[in-house]
């Protein structure tokens, strides 16, 4: 048996033996029962916690806003979102995410990734069911009314950090909707020693009317020249010519929400 080392004990005062703790508990009792106070218990089924607005509860989908960009399905760590065709009423179908809530870990990454604020985390947190299949939703089953979701903030659109762009055209190839055209900038062609002009520098130009904010171009860009930034859709001129604003240097202050 190893020798047990004991340090010298500090005794509490005379009152300390049991009286101070007893005094504290007595005070609590008086506070909670006699002096008009109430215990700290939350009577759960009747009362509920008041939750903040951005509480991360069950997911909800606003079907009207969904553009089928698959951003959520791509960002989900648990692969609980899956895209499928579902009808939105009136015989129309739409490409929308289906949810397996049983796999969801309520991280909220999909909500942040959603460009059109179609995804929203509700305040519902009582998610228990008896059957696991009850928590696998088709798109219209976890749909949310638009008025329950918070206001739609401006869609983010790809913006160019011109400094980083090399004109490789990867974004153009990645874009599913023909938003991006690679445009040559006149006068940027370098003069070769033999007198001919090389190819002019190209930069992407976005047709924002076609864009669904899927951010595939941003993912595709090898040089981090693109970023998704919120932008008003009601701009008078839908096609923004980047080259007309060569000084677009997005600073971090503008990024902040």
């Amino acid at each position, binding site marked *: *048996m*190893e*020798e*047990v*080392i*004991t*340090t*010298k*004990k*500090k*005794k*509490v005062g005379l*009152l*300390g*033996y*049991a009286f*101070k*703790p007893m*005094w*504290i*508990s007595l005070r*609590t009792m008086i506070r909670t029962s006699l002096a008009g106070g109430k215990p*700290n218990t939350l009577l759960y089924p009747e009362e509920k916690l008041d*939750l*903040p607005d*951005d*509480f*991360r509860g069950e997911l909800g989908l606003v079907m009207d806003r969904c553009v089928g960009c698959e951003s959520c399905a791509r*960002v*989900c*760590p648990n692969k609980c979102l899956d895209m499928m065709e579902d009808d939105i009423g009136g015989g129309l179908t739409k490409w929308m995410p289906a949810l397996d809530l049983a796999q969801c*870990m*309520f*991280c*909220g*990454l999909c909500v*942040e990734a959603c460009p059109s604020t179609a995804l929203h*985390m509700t305040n519902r947190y009582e998610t228990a069911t008896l059957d696991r299949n009850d928590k696998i939703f088709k798109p219209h089953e976890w749909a949310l009314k638009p008025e329950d979701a918070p206001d739609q903030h401006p869609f983010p659109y790809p913006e160019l950090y011109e400094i980083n762009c090399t004109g490789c055209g990867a974004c153009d190839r990645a874009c599913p909707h023909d938003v991006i055209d690679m445009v040559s900038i006149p006068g940027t062609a370098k003069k070769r020693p033999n007198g001919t002009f090389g190819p002019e520098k190209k930069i992407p130009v976005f047709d924002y009317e076609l864009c669904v904010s899927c951010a595939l171009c*941003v*993912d595709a*860009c*090898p*040089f*981090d020249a693109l*970023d998704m930034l919120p932008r008003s859709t009601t701009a008078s001129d839908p096609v923004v010519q980047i080259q007309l604003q060569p000084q677009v240097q997005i600073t*971090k*202050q503008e*990024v*902040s*929400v």
Partner: protein
Amino acid sequence: MGPQHPFTHGLWTLKVKVDGETIVDAEPIIGYLHRGFEKLCENRNFPQIIPICDRLCYVASMSWDHVYVSAVENTFGIEVPKRAEYIRVIALEVQRIASHLIWLASFMTDLGNLTAFLYAMREREMFIDLLQALCGARMTYNYPRIGGVSQDMPRNFPHQCTKTVDFFEKRLKEYEYLIEESEVFRIRTQGVGYLRASDALNLGVTGPALRGSGVPVDLRKTDPYSAYPELDFEVAVEKDCDVYARYRVRMNEMKESCNIIRQALKNIPAGPVLGKAPRHFPRGEGYARTEDPRGEAFFYIQADGTDRPYRVKIRSPIFVTVSAAPAILRGYKVADVPSIMGSLDMCLGESDR
């Protein structure tokens, strides 16, 4: 004392060899909660790992998020806005108080005082409310992002936070009355679970257990990170090396955390909270180490140029501290096991990974 024993907070086994009631040898067995975390990380890209880091330690999620995020930032040299650093510090300290409170609760339950358990849980609720206001979730925060934090704090958060901290300091005095002013608590903790400073250093024990042995090692001071160098605080150190010293260290740390929160709220600069995070990560490797509520947390990342880490290594403080358990336990009574192991603040999520 197996996985389903009332005093094991989490799933682990402590095989105890006794002679009468005296412990001759002890062997902690962990791994019941192994989820292959490090392998899991290799299949997810960098932002997707953050919510999994929440699950490393379910009572100190924020600090594990933070250590991961700062590891990524160190690896790729990402700049974090000042305001985000301050918000992170506030969140970390609130998390530290919450974690210490849940430690206090479980520790006092081990010692048989259910009242302190409920009181501590009651106060923890306030801090969880704070974190909930900050990020919208009560346990799995997923708050820090690579290059900042996910959202700025709500408008009334500083007010709420100050109010809570002021109230909590009052309650902390009440705890001291309730817990340590009783002779029973003293005789249960003083002179029990002696851990020499040299032993602690050799075994690699960190955190409150080390500081309880009189070694003033606190990464917030010795290897400052985030906004800590700009804040003024003291490291809680006790020289008694026993359970009581560890208890005192944690209580003092809670007080210091309150100070830090107040200072940070006062000094917080304006500005953005989320810097530009790259979508493409170059090759590289890096690490971060921070002062978890339980000790020194360490996160190592090796990136191979894709959007996922090639290798992730975690050093969990509890994994090391548990290994030190036999050295602490030997020679004491079976009845001391809860108080000694309770004073180490077990959290199996991070040690089993």
